[in-house]
């Protein structure tokens, strides 16, 4: 008897949630520009990340100051600029390096000393100077690494001319797993999913709920026989659907256009994505309840979800490189667990046995934030 009563109440409650969701869906559909924007964004970002964001730089412009002008120095320059990683932009005066850097004409100047040829012939040690523009950190690191490797290649070439070259005493074999070609897209797509979900879920919810406060229609909703929890669930449901669509879009496009593999289980992927999304929607709700103003909600959303999921999730910058307070902070950022889980599923083919802590973390966050935000939502009105 009591069970039947409960079932009836549950059914009526579900109908009310459904009505709220239908109303919110109508809102979204009546002006589909929001929907377009929400669905176009992931695709645009995917293309941008896939094509535009790469850390590897080729054809770096290098100026050559060959003070020796001998056969040996020309051979050195050929080795250094021959591989196409560093490209000669012509001769330069070392004194002019500064001007060259300021105008962006070259990122480094290789100075070959006057006595280079003689010293090589006499089998001595030669110092080659590399003047580099340190203002672009990523470029200068690559210039240094590439120049170092190319000069070592020239040393070996010189040594190779020796007839009595013994077998190398030590050899290194490097195997790169999961992403042997070192493609940035494979690294970025899982992170991108987290970023897009954080952006749309938190900010769209925050904006739509804050909009109801601004217009005063929230009070009207409360006057209706719908309970607070039902309002929350109904309002979040359409955005949950949009978010899941976005997640699928990112993976589908990533696989189709950038050959991002799906090595693990797709259902685990959806499960982690779902709970992350619920957490993000809850966070958006919390922000809107606290701010009640769309402009302020935007900023709060950017600060609390968008930036952390971009910077502290390990999406672009490895967490191990951060100072310890930020490493600690990253442990409470749900995007960190999503990025780790998605990379594990897509690239490594990890299963639940490896990824259960990540799943647990996103579930925990979702439950916690939903609890806090509904509690706060109710208190706000009483």
């Amino acid at each position, binding site marked *: 008897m009591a069970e039947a009563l409960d079932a009836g109440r549950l059914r009526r409650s579900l109908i009310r949630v459904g009505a709220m969701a239908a109303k919110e869906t109508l809102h979204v559909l009546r*002006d589909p*520009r*929001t929907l377009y*924007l929400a669905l176009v964004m992931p695709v645009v*970002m995917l293309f*941008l990340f896939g*094509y*535009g*964001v*790469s*850390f*590897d*730089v*080729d054809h770096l412009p290098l100026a050559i100051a060959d003070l020796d002008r001998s056969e040996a120095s020309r051979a050195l320059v050929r080795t250094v600029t021959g591989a196409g990683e560093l490209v000669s932009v012509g001769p330069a005066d070392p004194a002019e390096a*500064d*001007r060259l850097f*300021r*105008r962006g004409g070259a990122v480094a100047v290789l100075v070959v000393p006057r006595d280079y040829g003689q*010293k090589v012939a006499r089998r001595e*040690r*030669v110092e080659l100077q*590399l*003047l*580099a523009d*340190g203002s672009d*950190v990523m470029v*200068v690191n690559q210039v240094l*690494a590439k*120049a170092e490797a190319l000069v*070592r290649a*020239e*040393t070996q070439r*010189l*040594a190779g001319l*020796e007839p*009595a070259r013994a077998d190398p*005493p*030590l050899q*290194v074999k490097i*195997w*790169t*797993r999961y*992403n042997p070609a070192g*493609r940035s897209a494979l*690294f970025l797509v899982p992170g991108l999913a987290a970023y897009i979900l954080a*952006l749309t879920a938190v900010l*769209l919810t925050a904006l739509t709920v804050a909009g109801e406060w601004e*217009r005063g229609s929230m009070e009207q909703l409360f006057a209706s026989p719908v309970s607070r929890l039902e309002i929350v669930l109904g309002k979040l449901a359409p955005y949950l659907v949009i978010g899941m669509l976005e997640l699928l879009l990112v993976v589908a496009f990533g696989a189709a256009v950038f050959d991002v593999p799906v090595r693990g289980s797709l259902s685990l992927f959806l499960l982690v994505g779902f709970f992350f999304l619920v957490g993000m929607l809850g966070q958006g709700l919390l922000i809107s309840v606290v701010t009640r*103003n*769309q*402009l*302020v909600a*935007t900023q709060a959303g950017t*600060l609390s979800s968008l930036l952390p999921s971009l910077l502290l999730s390990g999406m*672009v910058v*490895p967490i*191990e490189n951060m*100072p310890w307070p*930020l490493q600690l902070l990253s442990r409470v950022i749900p995007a960190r667990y999503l990025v*780790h889980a998605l990379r594990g599923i897509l690239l490594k083919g990890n299963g639940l046995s490896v990824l259960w802590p990540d799943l647990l973390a996103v579930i925990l966050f979702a439950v916690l934030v939903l609890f806090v935000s509904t509690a706060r939502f109710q208190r706000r009105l009483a």
Partner: protein
Amino acid sequence: MSALGRPKARVQLAAVFRKEVRQTARDPRMMFMLVVAPLLQTLIFGFAVDFTTDHVPTLVLDRDGTDVSRLQARRLLADGTLQGVLSATGPAEVDRDLDTGAAAAAVILPRRLAADLAAGRTAEVQVVIDGTNPNQSTVAGAAASQYFGQVAEQMARDRLGAAGREPPAQLELVPRISYNPEVKSPPYMIPGIAALLLLVVTTVVTAMGLAREREMGTLEQVMVTPIRPTVLLFGKIAPYVVIGFVDVMLLVTAGTWVFGVPIRGPLPVLVVGTLLYLLTTLGVGLLVSTISRTQQQSFLAGFLFIMPAVLLSGVMTPVRSMPEWLQAVTWINPVRHYAEVMRSCLLRGAGFGDLATPLLALAGIGGAVFLAAALRFRTRLG
């Protein structure tokens, strides 16, 4: 523009300006998001984004277990690029730790390493790297091959010497890095971040602020007053120009104090650059507000502009790493030019002469965008 010269127009402009300033300053949360939030974000960015990859968590599987192999392992890990976190006893552990992400690289020293080296046979060291993060895997691979390459070279030299033959010439690269000799990330990142935050703050705030007025119908109310659309436009954006300048000053100051960013160039370059840049960012905000009906839409549309502009600006990854057709597209990206102006002026000490190209580009883009926005704004209202 001629309308601004007349006394009546000036009075009107002052009135609109005053109203906007009061409205903005009245809400402390608004001031927080315009001034404090960018500062906070700069601090997080500055500490979190560090592109010098080191501390790569490394697993060592020493199958030799002699003094020689232990010494090699210790020396390899000594400089901190590869950081020994684990030692394994079998290949199964290598697989497991790479799968879970406990280690990002594994160094396997072969059985009989010491014996092979002593006997002059070629010993083979294996390095297995997690390629998920291409940036990190490149650094890890380079560090391992550089270390073992040097060891091998030294041994080859010693052997030649022992055999009574003369070793070949040795080339050594001596880098001299200007502007940022320690290759620290913050001096490189902070100027770019300033460009990014200025874009987010001014574009989103203008777009959403105007959309809000449209939502509430207050824009129409102002239109029935004798204020001209042009005057209204300038009065509305003028406070944000002021806030933009305050933000730039704050960010640069925080950059110098907290992160040691130098100020080497003439300040007028920064002022002119910032003014031209604000023309674009505010213009985009206006444009967005004229094509969207709600705040939610203008936020999404604003972000649809901001995301590509940020990703293709060279702030996060070098422009040179993009495919050539994308590099050409970045010419119409104001963020790219402003970041270039900021970096070049602050770090390299570049003046107007060096930065003529990006400044002219900024002026061209800013003028075009602002004109288009102003025209659209007038027709929408008139």
